[in-house]
């Protein structure tokens, strides 16, 4: 783990070069989550085909940890089956980033929350 209040190089890289920032024009599913205590918000859009995530994008209004969590999650989830993507956890984000400052772990949870909501939305829309 990194020191308190100190970001890993990986997290800083996602801050300065966010991956997959944006919104898919015709998503299979859209999910959002927020951290009411700080006002941070993330929206994730996914494109699903053959039960796999073909593409995904994120939008995050928030701190370094919130942006880095959502950005790295789009890399972790790309290409996964829906079932595998739904099993991603905050710990996977923390591992991929080499940790987050101790008080910032809720930011990883927000990214996971937005992804899971997008997957549920995609499933609902597929069966509708």
């Amino acid at each position: 783990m990194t020191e308190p209040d100190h970001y890993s190089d990986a997290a800083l890289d996602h801050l300065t070069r966010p991956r997959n920032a944006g919104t898919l024009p015709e998503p299979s599913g859209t999910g959002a989550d927020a951290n009411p205590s700080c006002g941070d918000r993330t929206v994730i859009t996914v494109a699903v085909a053959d039960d796999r995530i073909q593409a995904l994008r994120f939008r995050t209004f928030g701190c370094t940890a919130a942006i880095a969590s959502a950005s790295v999650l789009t890399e972790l989830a790309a290409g996964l089956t829906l079932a595998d993507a739904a099993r991603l956890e905050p710990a996977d984000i923390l591992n991929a980033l080499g940790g987050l400052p101790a008080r910032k772990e809720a930011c990883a949870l927000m990214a996971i929350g937005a992804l899971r909501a997008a997957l549920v939305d995609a499933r609902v829309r597929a069966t509708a």
Partner: protein
Amino acid sequence: MRRVYLDHAATTPVDTEVVELMAQVLRDVPGNPSSIYAEGRRARALVETARDEVARAIGADPAEIVFTSGGTEADNLALRGVLKAREREADGIVTTAIEHHAVLDTARDLEAHGLARVTVLAVDREGRVSPDAVRAAMDGRTALVSVMHGNNEIGTLQPIQPIGALCRERGITFHSDAVQTVGALEIDVRTLPVDLLSVNAHKFYGPKGVGALYVRKGTRIATVQTGGGQEKGRRTGTENVAGIVGLGAAMRIAIAKRAAESARQVALRDRLIAGVRSLIPDATLTGHPTERLPNNASFCFAGTQGEALVVSLDLEGFGVSSGSACTSGNTDPSHVLLALGLDRDLAQGSLRLSLGRATTDADIDALLAALPPIVARLRAASGAAVPA
């Protein structure tokens, strides 16, 4: 990487002459100022010279200067000391919504313990409190009015002259936290109707951990801590001799540089503000456009979050700060930004740039080159349309 430090409102680097003087005192002056033999007398003489320097800088009598451990202690002594001295006689504190926590939280603490009634006055969109509001809040049991001189976050200067005059008419003690302004703006207590004034050395190129409270002669104020009776019983505890010497020297140097340096910083500040506003769409200047600290340029950028701005600028070599630090897990924007009536999301995107003696035109150019792409990148990542 070249570092550009633009956080002088947080703290300033210690002037090299001050460093030398303090090192000399630590090395060569072992005495306790309360001892009556030679070593003690030498330490005492240094403390009293520093007292003279601080007093002269604000037009005070040396006997009116009480050394403290910094601005927070000076504020605590002012509020707690006055309320204690007026116990059972007057209990009202009138202050503003944008005071430093050292004042607001002290007032709240006194209130929570049933020792004070606190009235917190709103400010306008530019952070100014109106003297009329202060007048309306006063009553027959008001003991103290506390209104800061210059705000540490947004730089707004308060109309302390008319507020002080109102207090004087009614015989109410007037305190001003002048931590951001002493050393930067002319302050003369012979014409400014203030009874108590907080001073902090590390805001004007002195050391951290030392400050002073100006206490106008005749002001009723009790001691807050008890002990050996130093500082005429008003702030007991063995004097921080080297720190006090540093405070005095830093004050003397600041006063000598003040006129030229403040004018220079105002010019840099105004170029910075104009540059940010022309290069970044939707840049909101926080604080008053003209009645502001010479070194403060503070903004909010919609669609960004302050912590991400600070971390991004740090990576590019800039030391800056934000009113929405987002480090505690519960990251409400600062009470100052919310008191301006800013929308919560907008207040999240705050950035404070505070200039200093070492700041150059090249530093401003570098910041103006680095900041716009960072704001653009964070806005692209957030999207203007992320739903609440």
